[in-house]
């Protein structure tokens, strides 16, 4: 293992069993292939973007990395430590240590804050659990964190319902930062916010990265925010990666037909610029019975050319760290 890479994910698989509804006997009748063998690595202090439509396995990936839902197979290394081994060993101290390094900002700031706790309780709870700050400094730390995310001191005694969506998301970020994490997984942090507030939160995330040197795993379906904040982007489709590249490279020369369609379907806020729009036919297939071979084949404009149905294409490096999983492109 090279020492340079901060987070490494190897062949991560997450399947959810489907069981019949019995009281005593629960038979397994199928499997949802949420994540099906993905590998990637993230350098320290950078932002890695995970893009895809709903249901493609972005959130499952993030939860599996944190062992919130242990993955079915595959390995996750954080700073050369095997995350899976630590969780399997059930060594409470080590698990706590690990949790301190990785934190999660949830998708919906309206659902991820306990309505019966004040902001002070919410932000100090991680301090109580991890005990990495002496008790007499908890309050100082609280006000530091509030200032860091752009909230005022008097907000500490308020309850979540008194805040707007953008402010709630700031509270969530402050809570995650309370344990000084090295990796922050942001799961659609701006999806439920208004445009003007969205810009505020994105700027905040960028500033925090520069100040605290945190590594982000940024999950989103919104490509324009990804372009703004990420260094490297992976495009996901039905549990697999179809393309990984540096942000500029991906946006300037997308190679996979799915990435091309995805980029062309973003509405551009400019009435004159007319880009040729690739409208994909059909919808994302069910992850219970994903198509054999290339998973994008049923909706692909270029299918049948290279027997896409028979063999699943592998991610192949075509130079500059640009990886594509399409036989037609890589040929």
């Amino acid at each position, binding site marked *: 293992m090279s020492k340079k890479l901060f987070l490494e994910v190897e062949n991560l698989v997450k399947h959810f069993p489907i069981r019949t509804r019995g009281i005593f006997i629960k038979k397994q009748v199928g499997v949802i292939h949420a994540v099906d063998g993905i590998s990637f690595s993230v350098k320290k202090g950078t932002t890695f973007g995970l893009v895809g439509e709903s249901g493609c396995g972005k959130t499952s990936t993030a939860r599996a990395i944190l062992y919130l839902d242990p993955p079915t197979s595959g390995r996750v290394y954080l700073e050369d430590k095997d995350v899976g081994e630590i969780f399997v060993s059930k060594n409470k101290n080590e698990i706590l240590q690990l949790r301190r390094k990785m934190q999660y900002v949830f998708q919906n700031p309206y659902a991820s804050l306990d309505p019966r706790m004040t902001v002070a309780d919410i932000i100090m709870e991680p301090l109580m659990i991890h005990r990495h700050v002496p008790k007499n400094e908890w309050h100082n730390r609280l006000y530091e964190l509030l200032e860091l995310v752009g909230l005022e001191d008097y907000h500490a005694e308020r309850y979540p319902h008194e805040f707007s969506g953008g402010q709630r998301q700031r509270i969530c970020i402050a809570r995650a930062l309370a344990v000084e994490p090295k990796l922050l997984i942001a799961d659609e942090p701006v999806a439920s916010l208004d445009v*003007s507030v969205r810009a*505020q939160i994105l700027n905040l995330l960028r500033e925090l990265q520069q100040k605290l040197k945190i590594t982000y795993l940024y999950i989103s379906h919104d490509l324009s925010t990804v372009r703004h904040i990420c260094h490297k982007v992976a495009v996901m489709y039905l549990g697999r990666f179809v393309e990984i590249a540096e942000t500029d490279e991906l946006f300037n020369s997308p190679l996979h037909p799915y990435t091309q369609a995805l980029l062309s379907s973003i509405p551009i806020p400019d009435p004159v610029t007319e880009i040729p729009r690739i409208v994909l036919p059909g919808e994302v297939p069910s992850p219970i019975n994903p198509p054999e071979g290339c998973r994008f084949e049923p909706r692909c404009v270029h299918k049948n050319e290279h027997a896409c149905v028979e063999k699943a294409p592998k991610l192949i490096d075509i130079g500059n760290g640009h990886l594509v999983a399409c036989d037609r492109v890589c040929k």
Partner: protein
Amino acid sequence: MELNLMTQKEILRIENLKTYFDTWAGIVKAVDGVSLDVREGETLGLVGESGSGKSVTALSILGIVPRPGKIMDGRIIYKGQNLVEKTENELQKIRGKEIGYIFQDPATSLNPVFSVADQLTEVIRRHQTVTKKEALEKAIELFRLVDIPDPEIKIWNFPHQLSGGMKQRMAVARALSCQPSLLLADEPTTNLDVTIQAQILQLMKNLKNSLGMSMILITHDMGVVAGVADRITVLYAGRVCETADTKTIFYSPRHPYTKALLTAVPSLVLKKEKLEVIPGSIPNLIEPPSGCRFHPRCEYAQTKCAKKIPPLVEIEPGHYVACIRASEIEIKSPLGAEANE
């Protein structure tokens, strides 16, 4: 094209609409003096952040503002008739037949215990004298129109059996079932994925052209209106900021809020180090700021902005702005460079 639009007959005109909600905390002035008009065959984009009164304006048109909301003042003139003065019975004949409505969330605007066929034929049988069988045939025809595969089978499905994109297509089909002359689409693509959004927008554009109806498209996404709308009205905190044709709004906006909205959107084309931010957040509508409601967040604000409510003034033909400093300040569009092409 533009001249043509100017001379076209207007189908809907809203004058000084005020819709208030009387809550325990005080009166929420959700819509406070909105004026706009829609011409025949055009698409008007209604743009603003959440809480700016977009949806309440649309609901007011049909008289279906949820309680405790009430239309306090103003006129809504649809084809020469004032809808505000109509009785419930008279309005029911207009809803669904003359004016179609696509609700914000397709998942919650469909009844989960009735099949799609029931919900579609209900509208058709309410407004047209047809038998059950004919109504069903019409419903299947509509399904074909909105590109749903296997319409004969899919029509017997229940809403939970359809995907988000399908539900939205179904909602479009329901709104179009009686060939309305005006379609109100309230954030029709907000909950959908980009590839599905592209499909639905394409579909709505084609249908609007082939059926020749007018449309009000409500959205907060500047990208969506840019591609679909002919004219745009920008709302902020229950008032109109600016109305103009799409090109003017994007290339030479005159209201500071319009400009702020345009710059806050992360762009795919231009990569910026830092996004420009509108400071603060949307005001509380129980006690809105005095004078111009945008002045606490406006970079051009002066003391006079807080004193006087800016009237909506026509500064160029067809370009209305509600800003008392509109003639003094120079606003550059973030897209400005391409304007002269």
